[in-house]
């Protein structure tokens, strides 16, 4: 797994590539936590290059969503591939965290 984060115009973007599973989720959790340490209230996850997501990975995204809710902020997950999208739908997480097809439409949700 590769995880990168940047902050632009008050929006924290986190891109995750590869597999987000029990092995890689502790590292992802750490990066996400650090990325949210500022007072940001808008987070975008670019999951376009995410190949696999396990329940441990769902937990990382859920923690970020909960943190944003506490701050009354906004979070969006973008560009999920079919497999990852299906995991979201079957697990019911799509009703907890908004999903958009592209980063552009994700930006609109946050604006």
């Amino acid at each position: 797994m590769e995880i990168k984060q940047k902050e632009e115009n008050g929006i924290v973007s986190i891109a995750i590539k590869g597999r987000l599973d029990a092995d890689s989720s502790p590292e992802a959790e750490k990066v996400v936590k650090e990325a949210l340490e500022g007072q940001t209230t808008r987070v975008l996850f670019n999951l376009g290059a995410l190949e696999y997501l396990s329940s441990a990975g769902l937990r990382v995204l859920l923690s970020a969503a909960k943190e944003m809710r506490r701050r009354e902020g906004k979070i969006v997950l973008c560009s999920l591939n079919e497999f990852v999208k299906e995991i979201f739908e079957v697990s019911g997480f799509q009703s907890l965290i908004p999903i958009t097809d592209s980063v552009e439409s994700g930006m609109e949700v946050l604006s």
Partner: protein
Amino acid sequence: MGNNNSDTESILLVDDNPTNLQVLFQTLAGVGCKLLIAKNGNGALAIAGKALPDLILLDIMMPDIDGYEVCRQLKAVDATADIPVIFLSALGETEDKVKGLRLGAVDYITKPFQPDEVIARVNTHLTIHRLKREVESQKDKLAHELEVVSEVQRKLLPKELPKIDGFKLAANYETSRYAGGDYYDIVELPENRWGFLIADAEGHSAPAAVLMAMTCALFRAYPDSADDPAAVLNYLNRHLCKVAEPSFMTALYAVYDAGQQTMRIVRAGQPLPMIYRASDKKSFELECPGVYPLGIEPYDIEVPVTEIKLMPGDRFFVYTDGLSERFNAEGESYGEERLLQPLATDSASTPQDVVSAIISNLEQFAGDHPADDDQALLLGIVD
């Protein structure tokens, strides 16, 4: 120089030259450990095997068997394999040192040595060895505790599956490490109805085991008859929301009416149930809308209930994602599609036969790649 050495620790000094041995003895007299000596290779092996010292300082050139061979033999025996060996030799070429280190020695000191250097290195290696032993012992202790948790956990599962009129059952439960987060249970309800629960705590090991045990306790303490699947799910969720964070629990609950052969299903993050229709010999995933897993937040929508009528020979199959997300050595997951195949195995089979077919198909796919998640499954076949 400060150190944490104690006189319960011992160092074996090996050299065929009495003067060298004496100098070494005097050098290390102050490190606080018991010092043992051997004047040749055979003597070193004998003392090491009996006394199991905490460190060995080993000369290389000796008349009987040389230090390399002593080291090789020490490393070949379980009891002495972990004792750190430091070579102490006049052979100062890089290739000598590399040879010694390749044999498993932790260090190599060239003679003539500086006493302070020897003391410093000895202290370092004694400390490393001590810490290593502590880690090992903590690891053993933890593994033992998890084994105990696992034993308790298995007692929480149904001891035997109930005999239901016209609906035969089989189940399978395996944990990837000692303790697991998967759970299944079956309760008898009024009027020949039965409640089936299968659940999976996110994560593994102790935290998952606690959630699993809690879900079991909550389910068994359900105050009403667990006849209304949506109410059961809301009840579990309400209670788990207070304790689960940052984790969660996926669950599927189904009420089977043995008189009507109907199944009413609610699903919170669990994989879709699978059905095998005997009439057309086909298996499929049942479209079954669900809600997010238990323990995240109360459901603000009505929990959807899916009802299905089963016919003679039909199979109802629920499982945790440890099966569908089992990987093989190539990094490929087993997947739902593959799981549907053994479920549709020869219609004359008993539930146990079908479960065996599923497990063997899965194991064949995974090969020797071990499971890294727990696996639970429950199967019922209508007579």
